[in-house]
């Protein structure tokens, strides 16, 4: 029997462990939260290092969609009001990739909750905001990688930005803002859901949001009430703003939402994040309390 080895060794510890007292005051609390956020982000980065195949597979899907859209449909379709469908649909693809990110966030958060990792975090003196904030940083890094690879493929199939690098970067910034909002929504849903198997429900919700938007279709071709829904869809705001900034065709419908796409592309993500980040953190703190 090897049981004695365990008892011979110091399980408690030989040296006293300096237990840091919880932070007092807002500045200390902020430093504490920043450190925890970075630790949680580091955990996600370590996951990627362990599973490089998953990261590649995650990037492959949007790439395939971009190439398919570019080669299969690109040559055949014209946008009403003029313009190449390939150029029209490319910003839609970018934005849809950001929207679909909600599934990754949801799955990661719901899995941690199911496995009891979330409870372990909650019983520790770490900052309650760090779980969501760390997830946000990691997911934005992943989204940024997708926003490098997808446009490169876009260039390959003939898509271009026409109005300079500055405006193109602004468009990518808006896309990341949408992804950030999706982190907040995904984290909240992941904490509310009974488990990772509810991912199906999120997937079912994500599809109508993508199709009832200007990402793939031209809202002007839809019946009036559907067109209104499509134009006020947060996804459409980002897509239309992206088209304006990249210099891609924007078939104007004259509606307020379409005319103020840039404003809405900032306002929607800010609003969603402002609502769902606090909700997610509150839910995390009070998980079945």
């Amino acid at each position, binding site marked *: 029997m090897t049981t004695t080895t365990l008892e011979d060794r110091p399980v408690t510890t030989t040296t006293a462990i300096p237990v*840091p007292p919880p932070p007092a005051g807002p500045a200390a609390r902020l430093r504490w939260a920043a*450190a925890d956020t970075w630790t949680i982000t580091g955990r996600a980065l370590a*996951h990627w290092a362990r599973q490089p195949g998953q990261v590649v597979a995650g990037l492959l899907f949007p790439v395939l969609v971009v190439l398919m859209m570019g080669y299969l449909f690109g040559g055949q379709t014209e946008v009403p009001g003029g313009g190449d469908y390939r150029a029209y649909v490319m910003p839609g693809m970018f934005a849809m990739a950001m929207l679909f990110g909600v599934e990754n966030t949801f799955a990661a958060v719901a899995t941690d909750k199911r496995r009891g*990792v979330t409870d372990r975090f*909650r019983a520790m003196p770490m900052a309650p905001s760090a779980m969501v904030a760390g997830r946000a940083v990691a997911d934005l890094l992943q989204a940024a990688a997708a926003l490098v690879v997808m446009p490169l493929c876009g260039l390959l199939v003939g898509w271009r930005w026409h109005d300079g690098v500055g405006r193109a970067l602004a468009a990518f910034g808006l896309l990341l803002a949408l992804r950030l909002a999706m982190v907040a929504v995904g984290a909240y849903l992941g904490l509310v859901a009974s488990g990772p198997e509810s991912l199906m429900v999120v997937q079912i919700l994500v599809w109508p949001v993508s199709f009832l938007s200007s990402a793939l279709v031209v809202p002007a071709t839809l019946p009036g009430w559907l067109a209104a829904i499509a134009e006020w869809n947060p996804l459409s705001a980002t897509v239309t703003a992206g088209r304006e900034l990249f210099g891609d065709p924007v078939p104007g419908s004259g509606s307020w939402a379409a005319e103020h796409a840039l404003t809405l592309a900032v306002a929607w993500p800010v609003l969603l994040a402002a609502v769902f980040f606090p909700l997610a953190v509150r839910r995390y703190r009070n998980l079945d309390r």
Partner: protein
Amino acid sequence: MGEHMIRATGLRRRFGRATALDGLDLAVPAGVVHGLLGPNGAGKSTTVRVLATLIRPDGGRAEVAGHDVVRDAARARTRIGLVGQHAAVDELLTGRQNLVLFGRLFHLTTRTARARAAELLAAFRLEEAADRPVRGYSGGMRRRLDLAAGMILAPPVLFLDEPTTGLDPRARTEVWDAVRALAEGGTTVLLTTQYLEEADRLAHSLSVIDHGRVIAEGSPDLLKSRVGGDRLDVAVADPADLPAAAAVLARISGGEPETDAAAARVGAPVADRAAALTEAVRALDAAGVEVADIALRRPTLDEVFLALTGDRSPQEPAPDDRPTARTEAAV
């Protein structure tokens, strides 16, 4: 802080219409392994989750290591370790990465977190597997890593919620050894379990919980003696002799003997061990009962449990757990 590391008074908690805790009291002195024993849904896990600051009680108060778990939760969290029902470790990371991650979240410096991880990996005999992903660990190794993660700050109080549920006997022994070692090091351990054997082997003291309150308290031995001390079991060679044997036992014990006709066995609680045994052998012989087996034994905690909670056994074995004629025929 007082002499109690864990102290709860009148804890109440409802989930919707279900009452999980109904005025639960608990006091655990420092350095003790205390067992919470009870059937499924009795309130064991809820108790641990309240004490580990995960659930807010609706009523009552609780202090852990001198810190109120509601008003001073942040401070309480630096004094506790929690090992929940799942092995709450990151499957993709290595054992070492897990411990460093948790150490960093306790705000140890990277250096201290690394040193502490190495120390714990050695203490829990995980050195060889330290740099492999947890996904490939056995159940026992996962649990030991889980325990190690709960011990990062060497907290004075450790909560273990059913630490061996779902483990094979070998892994269970590994975890028991680890818990004993922690207790020897001075850690106060609160342990919930459905396994009476586990409570019997590990706990210095027990609280038996049912319907959200403590229905009995004391050392395992004390609880056993409360149900009538020792028992005398007699197995007869001829089942026809059962009534005669029961009559003999009734006379000796002064209580009502329990007859198990299927096993041709009759048993009763007895007060004076050796005298009762001698007396029984003599009386059974005189009555012409042929004895197949006779034994004195302490009651099992199962019997204690049944006596305290009525008909509900904590393990609630399914009826087909017992080998019946049908299952034997199937073999």
